[in-house]
């Protein structure tokens, strides 16, 4: 299976804006996803076939490759809401594999 489709990512991002408590919009066409929120705008496009990551996130300042859905969300959030600070998962200190 190929990486997630632009339609799937667009739908995820549309709901993710609400989860982030950001007002904005996600527009989708055959070539890219445009996300606008918090006075910022970025574009997500499929990466060229000769690179290892599936997508590029382009802002006015730079273009960055992302390798996974989790990385994409982090990159988009950092671009739209750089002050959010982030909260990382904490796991209680015990084994995480079956004994």
């Amino acid at each position, binding site marked *: 299976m190929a990486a997630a489709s632009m339609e799937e990512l667009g*739908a995820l991002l549309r709901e993710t804006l609400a*989860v982030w408590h950001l007002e904005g919009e996600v527009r989708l066409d055959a070539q890219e996803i445009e996300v606008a929120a918090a006075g910022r705008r970025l574009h997500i496009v499929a990466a060229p076939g000769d690179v290892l990551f599936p997508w590029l996130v382009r802002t006015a300042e730079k273009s960055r490759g992302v390798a996974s859905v*989790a990385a994409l969300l982090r990159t988009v959030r950092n671009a739209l809401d750089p002050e959010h600070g982030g909260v990382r998962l904490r796991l209680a*200190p015990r084994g995480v594999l079956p004994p």
Partner: protein
Amino acid sequence: MIPVSVLTGFLGSGKTTLLAHLLRHPALARTAVIINEFGEIGLDHDLIETSDESFVELTTGCLCCTVRGDLVRTLGELLSRRDAGSIAPFERVVIETTGLADPAPILHALMTDPVLSDRLALAGVVTTVDAFHAFDTLARHPAAVKQVAMADRLVLTKGDLVEGEPAELKAELCRLNPAAPLVPVVHGAAAPELILDSGLYDAGSKAPDVARWLAAEAHGHGHAAHDHHEDIVSFCVYREAPIHAVALALFLETLAEHAGADLLRVKGILNIVESPERPAVIHGVQHVFHPPAWLDRWPSADRRSRLVFITRGIPRSWIERLLDLLEHEVAERSGEPLRQGEPAA
């Protein structure tokens, strides 16, 4: 592991009365009690009869914020005194919070402190709800809503002050937290096993409790229970196909990172690709997750992964979509044929 129960509930909802009755029960004779009072003068201590030194009162502030370090230290000291034989070898701990407490930081402390989590296991959150005042309290105090939403047991007190069956209130509590059984109690008289044994991690109670909170699917199947209080929603997410351990880790990490503050409780039993015969049980409070507990076997013939969420405004569809995308991504990279997750409609 020594079970630790957190007893919470809004001001005047009957926590201390309940605790006083519970502690008279022979089964709870070896119980250490930590009471946190908001204010300089502790009264609750005087209302509870105890026979040994396994009783600690914290009066430096609200347990949920200013004395979290004190709680960790106090529990550590209790364990040290127990080990040294200077107090009776207690077999259970009950922490009574202030009426204003947010239970989450307390659970975080219990789950993440390396010393405590080695010896103490969260046995559940018990929340008292005053049947007479609850509607007004829930409407006015977000802390009370969170206490209800995070509970493993809801204890309905002061029902004798209400005429007839408080059906509307029960329905409201069920909407806020469909997974928590509601236990009516009059003047604090309750059987300890109905109140305190709600944990996931005690070897003896794992399976029954899993079955109990998964019964929430009766309320959440196919639609979200939704309440106007702070947009709290509860729902179940199902997957037919097993989930890769890496996808689960990514899923929890992403949930915590992007929605941790609004993730009140998550409990789940999961069919993991790498452990098909032993399901994983997960439990999270906001951005803090307990490592998976691995059951010895499936508690029933139903081997679907089932996750119960209580959230503040996080759409179920976002969670399902995220889990699907992460699982597909991991399956693809591991070179396996795609197994389509089929969330039950």
